[in-house]
């Protein structure tokens, strides 16, 4: 029964304190915000808890050349989003397409996260994949994968 609070280890707390690839909601409002020059940005939130994030990507030659996020969330959400942006940066669209939930969770030792918090951890993966199918729908009209990806997102958690 014990140990749910053990999830608050050094790495989670550090990432939540100093998120990477992150713009504060105030920075987001400025003219030179990263989000004013992305190729795709997607927003989503967890309706019952208040985690709310936007993830933007710059895509060049089928590669995620840059990725940042903004918004507000709990420590789990902020840490997982940071880690996910680190994983996705520099990857091809196909590689991003294949990022799995365990890739994110294992990076932070959250494989056994309780069900009620899993949505905090995986919101960012949902947003990245949603951004991806949005981009594919707009730029890669021949891709057969958009609907599959939408299904995957809908069943992520």
């Amino acid at each position, binding site marked *: 029964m014990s140990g*749910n609070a053990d999830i608050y280890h050094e790495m989670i*707390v550090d990432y939540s304190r100093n998120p990477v690839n992150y713009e504060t909601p105030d920075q987001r409002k400025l003219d030179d915000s990263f989000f004013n020059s992305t190729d795709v940005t997607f927003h989503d939130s967890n309706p019952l808890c208040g985690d709310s994030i936007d993830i933007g990507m710059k895509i060049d030659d089928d590669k995620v050349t840059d990725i940042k996020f903004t918004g507000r969330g709990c420590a789990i959400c902020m840490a997982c989003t940071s880690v996910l942006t680190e994983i996705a940066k520099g990857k091809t669209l196909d590689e991003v397409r294949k990022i799995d939930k365990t890739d994110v969770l294992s990076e932070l030792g959250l494989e056994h996260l309780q069900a009620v918090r899993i949505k905090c951890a995986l919101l960012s993966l949902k947003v990245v994949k949603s951004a991806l199918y949005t981009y594919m729908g707009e730029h890669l009209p021949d891709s057969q994968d958009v609907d599959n990806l939408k299904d995957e997102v809908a069943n992520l958690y």
Partner: protein
Amino acid sequence: MDGYLKLQSTDSSFENLRKDFPILSRIVRDNKKLVYLDNASTTQKPNQVIDSITDYYQNHNANIHRAVYALAEEATEAYEATRDKIANFINIQNRQEIIFVRGTTEAINLVAYAWGRPHIKEGDIIVTTEYEHHSNIVPWQLLTQEKKAKLEYIGMDDNGELILDDLDKFLATGKVKLVTFSLMSNVLGTITDAEKIVEKCKAAGVPTLIDGAQAVPHMEVDLEKLGCDFFAFSGHKMLGPTGIGVLWVRKSVLETMSPFHGGGDMIREVHKYETTWNDLPYKFEAGTPNIADVVGFGAAIDYLTKIGMDNIREHEIELTTYAIEQLSKVKGLHIYGTKDISKRGGVISFNFADVHPHDVAQIIDEEGIAVRSGHHCAQVLMERLDVAATSRASFYIYNTKEEIDVLINSLNKVAKVFKL
């Protein structure tokens, strides 16, 4: 009604009634005593309530208002007895004005549907407030969108109190058809100056709906004095079972309402193509109701009446004063809403430095503490406060100062984890 304790509003006598609540001796997580501080969400149930439901199913269960046999008569009597207890509890003369519903949410939706649809027209205004629960916002959004009417909000000042000048401004348009507000905010605990709002609305000939879900469990509420036209509250926030609540509507208004659900028990005569309606309140209670939980609700009202609502209010003032005092000493902790205890109930929303309320709730859960974290179904208010979420501790009759001390100590753990 033996087994109830004679109570004075001192801490120790209130502590004695904890033995009526089996769940309060639960051990949770790592051998920690449960400290239940989420009473604004739902309250725990005393044996008297649990036993009354068991007794109903073991000895009296039958459908009501129909059959002539003994059990049906007993079930009907038990069901209708709660209606009388409620009439007495909130001081109304006419028991026909009390409609049993699933809870406050259903009550407000019933009004929006059965009163709102025939009465609201294009260009009309419905007024609510910035500190409402979603259940007193969304039904009005649905209605005003359907009718091309307008929804307006009475604003809230930085002290967590309503800005009643806003109401004057809306009433002056002559287009307001309903003003709806909660008697106590579920997030800030602010007690609304309801008598003043109703007085202003009456002067303008505008009906009022009061959401009493947070207030009725914690203080004496007198509908005759309040003078509103619609009043809603829930059983489960006042020691009663889940799934049962009350909508009260002034008879002169109730008579202008169309039915909500069609079906059995709400009819007088049904023919192939037309139907006539049953008498009040049965016109609004279609189908077999939640009989057992109505009986349990009656037992909850008996329990609260025995303690005395004034004693309960006094006990909660004592706890809330102590909690605000202690929480204010925690460095980096911000309490929302007024510090004026006469204007707030036993609900305290706070944020702890920059730690997200979910993380606070999770860490203190390891100490056995149940607090709510999130937006508390009040996102309009969260936007007004410019926060994503808060942590909320809310008290009831069985909480103690020692439990507040446990909460304060657990916050030190949060500070340690997050290096505050």
